[in-house]
């Protein structure tokens, strides 16, 4: 009996050991299977954090929803979007936003590339200058706009004084519809050119030396080197910088709002300013959301275009991924 008990007991212990032994690998296996999901969980949460406000905006954009006219609240599907088609103010907003983005990014690219080329040799002076040139980028754009507002004041602004020496006595900067766009573009270029410059400078300094050495040995003209060697090799950097700036620029708010609130008239009424006014001043939630969704669609289309182009360039340089 005692023997039987002892055998049973040892058998039970053995079974327990064997169960523990089989449970541990099972747990490890489950953990291994869940690991990819666990690792991507933070990204998933961030994604949800982005998607919830996005879909809320989409929902509101399909509503007739003014906070101060609650009795009119209701679902109207795409009426807000359809009303844009016949709305001159919307087309004005669209064209101003695109012109602003195109002009600022072009200006910043040309200047940024020029400065980067001047500073490409990593001397002490060049390094110091490139750091100093970053200072405007560290200024808050709204603050930069206010600074420029003072500098362009026709009564005491330094820039007004300087242009008066050139014969432009009554230059009204942002107050005049014919020069308002130029003024805000100048501020944008002043603030953001260093961003492009620093990206392109990093790109230029990382280019392989051999093609340039070979070109120098062959006595190839500098313009040929720039257009046929430097520029093509730098193109991925240019596209990256352009993409970042274009997306930012088309969503411009602080510089324009601080300087002119979208005026004079409707001359600088870009998407973000219009949308901000629609929500915070007119409490028209539906229209404000619809404007932002249109802006998102434009931004999305532009980013896709640029990313595809960038991938093509990369493929050409390194072969298919």
């Amino acid at each position, binding site marked *: 009996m005692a023997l039987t008990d002892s055998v049973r007991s040892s058998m039970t212990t053995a079974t327990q050991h064997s169960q523990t032994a089989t449970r541990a690998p099972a747990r490890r296996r489950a953990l291994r299977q869940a690991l990819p999901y666990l690792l991507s969980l933070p990204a998933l949460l961030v994604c949800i954090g982005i998607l919830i406000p996005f879909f809320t905006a989409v929902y509101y954009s399909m509503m007739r929803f003014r906070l*101060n006219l609650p009795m009119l609240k209701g679902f109207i599907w795409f009426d807000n979007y359809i009303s844009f088609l016949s709305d001159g103010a919307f087309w004005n907003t669209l064209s101003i936003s695109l012109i602003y983005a195109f002009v600022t990014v072009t200006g910043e690219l040309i200047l940024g590339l020029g400065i980067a080329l001047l500073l490409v040799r990593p001397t002490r002076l060049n390094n110091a200058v490139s750091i100093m040139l970053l200072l405007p980028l560290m200024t808050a754009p709204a603050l930069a706009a206010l600074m420029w507002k003072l500098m*362009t004041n026709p009564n005491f602004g330094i820039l007004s004084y300087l242009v008066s020496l050139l014969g432009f006595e009554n230059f009204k900067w942002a107050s005049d519809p014919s020069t308002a766009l130029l003024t805000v573009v100048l501020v944008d270029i002043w603030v953001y050119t260093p961003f492009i410059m620093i990206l392109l400078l990093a790109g230029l300094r990382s280019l392989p030396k051999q093609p340039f050495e070979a070109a120098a040995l062959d006595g190839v003209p500098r313009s040929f080197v720039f257009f046929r060697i430097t520029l093509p090799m730098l193109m991925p950097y240019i596209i990256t910088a352009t993409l970042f700036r274009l997306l930012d620029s088309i969503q411009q708010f602080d510089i324009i709002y601080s300087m002119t609130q979208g005026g004079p008239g409707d001359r600088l009424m870009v998407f973000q300013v219009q949308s901000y006014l629609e929500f915070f001043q007119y409490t028209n939630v539906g229209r404000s959301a619809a404007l932002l969704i249109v802006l998102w669609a434009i931004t999305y289309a532009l980013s896709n275009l640029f990313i595809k182009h960038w991938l093509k360039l990369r493929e050409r340089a390194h072969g298919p991924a």
Partner: protein
Amino acid sequence: MYEKGRDLAAAFVRKQVSRRELIQRASQLGLSVAATSFFVNQAMSQAMAADFDWQKHKGTNLKLLLNKHPYADAMIANLDTFKSMTGMNVSYDIFPEDVYFDKVTAALSSGSSEYDAFMTGAYMTWTYGPAGWIEDLNEYIQDSDLTNPNYNWDDVLPGLRASTAWNGVPGGELGSADAKQWCIPWGYELNNVSYNKPMFDKVGVKPPKNLPEMVETAAKLTKDLGGPYGVGVRGSRSWATIHPGFLSGYSNYGQRDFSVSDGKLKAAMNTKESKAYHELWVKMIQESGPKNWSTYTWYQVGTDLGAGASAMIFDADILGYFMNGGDNKEKGNIHYAPFAANPAASAPTPNVWIWSLALSSFSGQKEAAWYFMQWASSVEHDLFGARKMDFVNPVRASVWKDEEFRNRIDKSYPGYLEQHDVSAPGAKIYFTAQPLFFDLTTQWAETLQKMVAKEVPVDEGLDQLAASVDKQLKDAGLGG
């Protein structure tokens, strides 16, 4: 001495001692002006507390949302009086005006109960009221259990009481019998002329009495002064460009923003008379306004006058008041004059901006918040602000009669009392109350900018504006 000083102040508050006697006896007691003021203020608070249970909400914590403004400064300077009288604790967030109303909209639209009461303008209540974000204060004012018997609501200037009450019907008359009192007037500004006396003397002109005269005077000042421009008015792309001088003059010509028929609104800014008024206004800015007029808010209009960059402004009287003090270059040189834009008008009809206090519907302690609001708009606090701080313009008739306040203003602000006294009877909000106020008035400012920039002729611009306004009213179910 402490006891005697307190008794003397109490006797003064009970009107048993005249002001002259108070000053004489205080000096005999060796009391400084500051100490006497302290005793008087304390005695007033005690008198205020005598017939009402101010301690009912003792221990409650209130939170306010405030705009950075001299009215808020005066309240904060006197806040300990309220705290000691009620046993309540009051905290506040204070924001500059540029972002203030965004903060209010964000807090209220989200249904946040963080703030119990907040500063607002009357126009804003045309949004907040219909949205259900603020309380009708009639229910509190008329409840004798909730309101101090000495509150004396009727003492608040009638134009201001009416301007802050609306029945919620688009186009409904302000202050009508069925109107809801959306906020309590706290301090206000009316629009008249503030001018630089030495500059006027130098050129040999007198303050203009009407708009055609203003156009001429401003042009002469611009030409003869050789630097400063003639007249400062607002011009930014905002509703705030329309409400001060522009609408004050516009209403003086008998013009309205909308006509109301069968409960439907129709744009009225393209009448023949309105077009003539706009022509004059646009001409004045083109000839004698600031070069960068289209970026001008109240801030630039005021600081230009204070810095001697402009010779006069047609804007808020209190803007001229503040430019005559502080560190301003032209301190002491600013004078004031009443202004009726229409040569045929018998008196000015200034449109007003009223800083007011509103009670949030989301507050969890509305009664306690109302206690604060009635203290902050009481005669006692109004007097404190008017006498000791820069709480101009006070909203109570009794404060405007106060000798100490009048003497202080008269001494340092020549013409200020006169311009106020002449204009106050006609001072009220001249806009038609309706929910699209901000959209449509901003569009009006936008059109004005286009006219001044000569992008569109005045008559064509106004016709386009009226057509656009009518369409928006119709879309919102407010127009015919």
